[in-house]
């Protein structure tokens, strides 16, 4: 079967093309706080926008400044140059200000058929949960109105059930990575998550079942140390591949495009909108959330413990304020907990910088005795 990293290496894959040919709609989003189930219930394919480490920026730089996060600029570039013209709409939210700038410029320049701004609170409380539920209700209405489809509670429950199943399989797969004999690489794991948010649900379920089966008897060998990779919007398969080429096997992660997208989400049941609001807001592991640092720290510590990680790499893109600030404290707390840390600030998608990244990873492995 095709390796997930090969399949996830393109923005537009053959499954998506097939979906489009069959009249299927696709809506793009970026933030992990977006409940995919609502789009899924409408029969719309929720596509998580990615840039896959592409370095071009010249169109985006005419809109955003060089002091904006490179990931957002790279996504905007792809939007402006037409790579994402296969999307029928966009969902923006207030994940971070760089992303907001990206969406606003994208919408201004390309005028997508459907656009919705989903506001996500920064705190978890009874009031904010109620607010978020209302926001999700507005999102449901907007989608239904534009795409002429009724999103019933029954169809939402069906989508929730489908996503529950997928998340269970993902957890099983990712547990295989964390085990004594890791069954897959970090690059493959990242690719699987990228596939989850870019394939039609049925195609992904089918692929995941086959990959899970294949991985059960597998064992990755020849690495120097087991690493945890945490940080911001990291969809660069090449970067994870480089870390692993030097000998640091990524056995667990706390990445926005990694386990944070599914690991902690509970099994969803009950009143759909309220269940979604509670699940997505209460388990939103992102430094954009106020007063929730210890939940995020605890998530990382537990992952490191489960996977017996010998060191942690905290990666973030230049100018990512949220993760840049968070990593200062995380570094101190993880080191205090006995986990050596490498903070890896990098330019997004800069293939030419991989040599310097390799040097730092190699030195880090030498430091931890790997």
């Amino acid at each position: 079967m095709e390796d997930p990293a090969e399949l996830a290496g393109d923005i537009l894959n053959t499954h998506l093309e097939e979906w489009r040919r069959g009249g299927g709609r696709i809506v793009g989003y970026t933030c992990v706080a977006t409940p995919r189930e609502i789009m899924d219930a409408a029969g719309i394919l929720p596509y998580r926008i990615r840039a896959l480490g592409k370095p071009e920026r010249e169109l985006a730089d005419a809109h955003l400044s060089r002091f904006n996060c490179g990931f957002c600029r790279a996504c905007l570039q792809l939007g402006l140059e037409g790579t994402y013209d296969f999307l029928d709409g966009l969902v923006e939210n207030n994940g971070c200000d760089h992303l907001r700038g990206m969406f606003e410029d994208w919408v201004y320049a390309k005028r997508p058929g459907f656009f919705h701004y989903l506001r996500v609170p920064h705190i978890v409380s009874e009031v904010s949960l109620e607010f978020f539920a209302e926001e999700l209700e507005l999102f449901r209405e907007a989608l239904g109105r534009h795409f002429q489809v009724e999103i019933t509670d029954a169809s939402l429950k069906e989508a929730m059930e489908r996503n529950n199943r997928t998340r269970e399989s993902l957890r099983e797969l990712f547990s295989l990575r964390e085990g004594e004999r890791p069954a897959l690489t970090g690059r493959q794991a990242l690719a699987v998550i990228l596939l989850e948010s870019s394939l039609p649900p049925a195609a992904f379920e089918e692929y995941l079942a086959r990959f899970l089966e294949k991985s059960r008897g597998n064992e990755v060998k020849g690495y120097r140390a087991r690493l945890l990779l945490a940080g911001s919007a990291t969809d660069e398969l090449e970067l994870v591949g480089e870390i692993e080429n030097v000998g640091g096997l990524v056995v667990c992660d706390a990445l926005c495009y990694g386990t944070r997208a599914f690991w902690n989400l509970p099994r969803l049941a009950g009143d759909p909108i309220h269940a979604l609001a509670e699940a997505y807001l209460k388990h939103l592991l992102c430094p954009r959330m106020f007063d929730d640092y210890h939940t995020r720290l605890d998530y990382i510590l537990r992952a490191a413990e489960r996977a017996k990680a010998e060191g942690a790499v905290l990666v973030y893109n230049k100018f990512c304020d949220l993760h840049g600030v968070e990593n200062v404290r995380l570094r101190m707390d993880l080191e205090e907990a006995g986990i050596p840390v490498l903070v890896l600030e990098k330019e997004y998608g800069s293939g030419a910088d991989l040599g310097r990244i390799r040097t730092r990873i190699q030195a880090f492995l030498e430091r931890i005795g790997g």
Partner: protein
Amino acid sequence: MRFGGIDVGSLTAQAVVVENGKIAGSKSIGVKPNPVDSAETVLGMLLSDLGLRHQDISYIVSTGYGREQVQSRGLAHANVSEISCHGVGAFWLLPGVRTIIDIGGQDAKVIRMDTAGELKDFVMNDKCAAGTGRFLEVMCRTLGITLDELGTLSLKARHPVGLSSRCSIFCETEVLHYLQRGADKADIAASVNRAMAERVAALARRVGVEPDVTMSGGVAKNGAVKSELERILGVRMVPCPVDPQIVGALGAAILARKMGGEK
């Protein structure tokens, strides 16, 4: 038994051979476009000086940007990051050293070692020429002086000028501005060295500075940067007893001795 270390950096390449716990010889050259050619040349020159052949060296470790290519072409048995090599080399020379500030052609690193001579922590500069040897090169070109002159000239400064930016490009513009206004070159040179030291000091503070502190890399030869760093960090640097540019290659040779089986 003899052990070798080859360090191919962005501007210079070095080779060191150690024998019976002593440095038998060292060589430094400007790099060629291909790191393997640089390694071959510098090692060949050193072996010729010492009257040795490649097979007379029991084990060789490569380091620096070209370390992997040098090993894969069979010139070295193993490769180790330059961060570890500079740490090990400095610790071998000065066992009391706990912090090494290494400023090379295109990067700056601050390396912390523990009492056993193991790498404890490190920090490396961002992908930016500011705070590296390249920054000084650019400023020297603008000032019309050599790198060697930059350190000595700044000792004559009376009223250093203010350089607001640490970005090499912007800084060059500011230097040009001062030159056009007729500022004394010595005053500008002192400010350039200070700007460099401030940048590296900020890096050092990220991992903490524990005495003894020493410097390695080409910029260690610039006395003005060194004394500015001492002033900002409030420490006295322990002078490097050998050419600071060979510390990385020396560390590689020391690691080669360990990897090659000699205690």
